[in-house]
């Protein structure tokens, strides 16, 4: 890539913004702490080990929270913060292109999402030989990417950080709560199957039950379809006003 230095500079700027924002950095820490805490709590009550349904629930909760909290919030809020502080305009008038800003913005949140997904697996204690390496990686990459693109959409629509928090709420309700509580209701479970986070939790339930996960064509269609749709929505919004409306 011709202008790699610009991409690297934008990514560094975004990393410094993220790492110095306590509220954002609390997201992954909370996910890890909550999963570890619940595991200890439930484990001590059931005499050490976790029942498969609890393992599944904790995995669902951890991964859904990770994908939603970090992806939507980390990406969306930092863009909103840049709008609020007028640094986005400075970046866009310093020869950084829309594509460079896009990649630079999502690269660190994406890597953090991926890392925390694996950390959650480790904490829950699923043996690595049980994890289907390629499908897990594929699902994890696609879901994390979709979440980051949805975060970009939140950022493009938000005027400031407060507004971003408001916009992100319905996204969280749908993509986080529906899969997490899918086991409690047949209806929610069905809806969950059509969400990219639902596909991810479906896979983790198999892992928790000690079953082999096989990606179905519906799972693949949901995962890639939602990624493509979110990219298209982002492009439509970007074409209309850029990252910031005048």
């Amino acid at each position, binding site marked *: 890539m011709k202008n790699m*230095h*610009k991409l*690297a*500079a*934008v990514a*560094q*700027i975004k990393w*410094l*913004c993220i790492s*110095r*924002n306590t509220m954002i950095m609390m997201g992954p820490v909370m996910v890890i702490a909550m999963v570890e805490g619940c595991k200890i709590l439930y484990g001590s009550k059931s005499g050490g080990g976790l029942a498969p349904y609890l393992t599944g629930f904790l995995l669902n909760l951890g991964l859904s929270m990770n994908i939603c909290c970090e992806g939507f919030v980390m990406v969306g809020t930092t863009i909103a913060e840049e709008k609020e*502080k*007028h*640094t986005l*305009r*400075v970046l*866009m*008038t*310093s*020869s*950084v*292109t829309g594509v460079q800003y896009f990649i630079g913005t999502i690269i660190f949140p994406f890597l953090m999402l991926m890392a925390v997904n694996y950390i959650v697996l480790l904490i829950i204690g699923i043996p690595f030989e049980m994890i289907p390496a390629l499908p897990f990686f594929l699902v994890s990459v696609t879901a994390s990417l979709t979440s980051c693109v949805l975060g970009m959409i939140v950022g493009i629509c938000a005027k400031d950080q407060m507004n971003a928090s408001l916009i992100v709420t319905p996204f969280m309700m749908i993509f986080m709560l529906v899969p997490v509580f899918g086991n409690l209701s047949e209806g929610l479970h069905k809806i969950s199957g059509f969400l990219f986070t639902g596909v991810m939790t479906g896979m983790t339930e198999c892992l928790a039950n000690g079953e082999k996960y096989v990606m179905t064509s519906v799972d693949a269609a949901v995962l890639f379809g939602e990624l493509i749709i979110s990219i298209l929505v982002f492009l439509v919004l970007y074409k209309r006003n850029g990252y910031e409306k*005048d």
Partner: protein
Amino acid sequence: MEQNVLLSLSHISKRFKTELALRDISMTLSKGEILGFLGPSGSGKTTTIKIITGQLRQTTGEAKLLGTDSANIDASIYEKIGVVSDNSGIYEKMTVWQNLYLFARIWKVPRGRVEQVISQVGLAEHIKKPAGKLSKGQTQRLVLARAVLHKPRVLFLDEPTSGLDPSTAVAIHRMLLDLKEEGMAIFLTTHNMEEAAKLCDKVALLHEGEIVEFGPPQEICLKYNQIKKYHVLLNSNKDLVLEQNSENIGRIARWMEKDQIACIHSCEPTLETVFLEVTGKDLNI
């Protein structure tokens, strides 16, 4: 001369829904020139900068920046221009050094240049300080430093000294004159008439989106110097402003003969009074 023109606006108009924000704006800016765009808040100064720099599309007319139509500007043009907007746009949690160094990376500017600019703007003692902890004057100097880091050919400044103390404003003026000497073209918006008269080679007086006067500040002032006046301070502490007519010339001559005049000088109109005369409005409103 033509090849030195870095920016040209030709019959630019901008309409926001029902409001006409800019009306038939035409002007040029050449290498090593400072052009002042003067007008009260809401007169269309920032809109003009946004149109020239491709952040906003004009309704009619043509704007050319470094030979490129502003409607077709791509990111690469920003490597040749510097923009200081009315909002500082600094990363408050990053240090002064980081704020400059990261932009230096974007423009591929060597570290040495960053150090040079930091000392030029007098922020060498503050390089490790978070930018959010700088005073307003220091912040403005940081913003200016960032804008000139890559030695742009054209620099856009939107109210660069607004709200600053006089000594910081003077320091910024000095820096702008140095940049002009280096051949940089500067497009400056302000509502400070003194600043414009001191710095600018040409000024455009903007009123409700329309240029009502354009030219060198002195020429504009002299154009409106139809009724010549003299300010006379007599030894008796009597302070008088006299219009130039045969009667007053006789009075002044008599005072001079009797050595009664402590101080006398002509009263040419300032840009401020010209603006008031042309538009009937005060610039600071």
